[in-house]
């Protein structure tokens, strides 16, 4: 059922910060089609739908022209060879996708090899600059505060200015991690929280820190809670589904 609140411009503006998707080893094409169709039925104008490259044709069939399509590179562990990662990027550029994120080699982040992080970022940005919006994934949950700040500095040096904090899939973004990056970089980096974003209160907090993109598997529930706060629905009405 489509929530009646979707016609409210405040709800649509709120929805426009979200990425929602269907990713995972056991996900079938039928799963992707089902989730994409659910999004389309909802009438919500979210920012993008996330899927694996192998699922791109199915997602495009359902959502082409409705939502941007976001495909991650080397998701979720960043452990592909650099050569393979750049091949994935070239492939996605050829596919004309709308948005992407790139899982850095997390071993460089953990080892503090910031020159390698910058070099990897630069190779990616040299390929996709002006062709594809790209966020660099730093898997912040694996890092301490100093490493998170150094990682952001390294990707800035490499020419990127969007950071996806985590991949989800077991790695979630905390409020403190977003605070940290916001405090140190104050608008120089576009922060994309991802993973374990489940509540309206979390999203409120992120938005108060200037976040413009939020990845969440709970997008329908969060938007329903937002509509309820606006007085557009009662708790019993539930969300778009």
């Amino acid at each position, binding site marked *: 059922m489509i929530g009646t609140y979707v016609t409210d411009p405040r709800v649509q503006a709120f929805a426009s910060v979200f990425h929602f998707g269907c*990713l995972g*080893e056991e996900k079938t*094409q039928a799963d992707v089609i089902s989730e994409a169709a659910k999004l389309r039925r909802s009438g919500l104008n979210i920012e993008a739908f996330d899927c*694996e490259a192998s699922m791109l044709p199915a997602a495009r069939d359902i959502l082409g022209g409705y939502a941007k399509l976001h495909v991650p590179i080397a998701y979720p562990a960043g452990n592909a*060879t*650099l050569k393979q990662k750049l091949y994935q990027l070239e*492939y996605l550029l050829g596919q004309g996708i709308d948005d992407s994120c790139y899982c850095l080699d997390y071993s460089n982040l*953990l080892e503090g090899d910031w020159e390698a992080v910058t070099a990897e970022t630069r190779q990616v940005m040299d390929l996709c600059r002006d062709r594809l919006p790209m966020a660099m994934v730093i898997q912040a949950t694996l890092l301490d505060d100093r490493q998170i700040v150094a990682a952001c500095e390294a990707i800035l040096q490499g020419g990127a200015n969007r950071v996806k904090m985590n991949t989800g899939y077991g790695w979630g973004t905390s409020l403190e991690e977003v605070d940290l990056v916001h405090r140190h970089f104050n608008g120089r980096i576009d922060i994309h929280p991802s993973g374990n974003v489940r509540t309206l209160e979390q999203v409120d907090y992120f938005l108060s820190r200037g976040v413009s993109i939020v990845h969440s598997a709970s997008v329908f529930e969060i938007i329903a809670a937002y509509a309820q706060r606006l007085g557009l629905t009662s708790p019993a009405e539930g969300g778009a589904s």
Partner: protein
Amino acid sequence: MIPHKSIIAASLHLEPNRAAILRDIHRAAARGIRHVVVNENMVALAMAEVQSANLDVSVSGIVGYPIGQWMWPAKKVALDELSQIQNGPLAVMHGVGPWLDSTDQSAAELKGIADLNGAVWVMTSLSAIPEERLKALADDVAHCGAEVLILSNGVAASGLPLPDAKQISALAQHAGGRFALASMAPAGTPAETIATWLKAGADTVLCTDFWDLSASASDTGKESS
């Protein structure tokens, strides 16, 4: 204790740890464990250690781990690269989702694997596959010429459980000796559980805790192989 000949050492890290990989390479050699699998981006590191320390260990990088849903042409790029670096069999994770869908991409990947030169290991997620599809899985793996099918535990967050002894037994019957089964045992898997998998028909276990759970070749009086 698990006999060392029944173990493939796993040094797969979602939280990468280069020191642990180097340690595991030496530990495998010390235990007489022949094969070590690592993340594909850690093959060069592992091989440099094998060569500098002159260790009798074969290294394979699992391409596509831990989800397996990257496109085959991208996986092929990595397999071609690793074939020039590693001394172990090629290893690739086949995404179970596309396989369950019988997509063209899944078929293309299986054909691509069949066309590879040399020994190949395939990994996929048995727990996601219903019993009535096990024969088809076994036939596909056999047709693509894989020597070993690794039964992935996937990523914990996916919610997929480890394959149980009943699933392993059923798949072993369908495999019929056409390829070997290696069941994946992540950190913390009890030796008793591994023993039930081996009894059920797994030929080997891809074991993270191999150092704690294995007996050395000298302890058991067996030669390393």
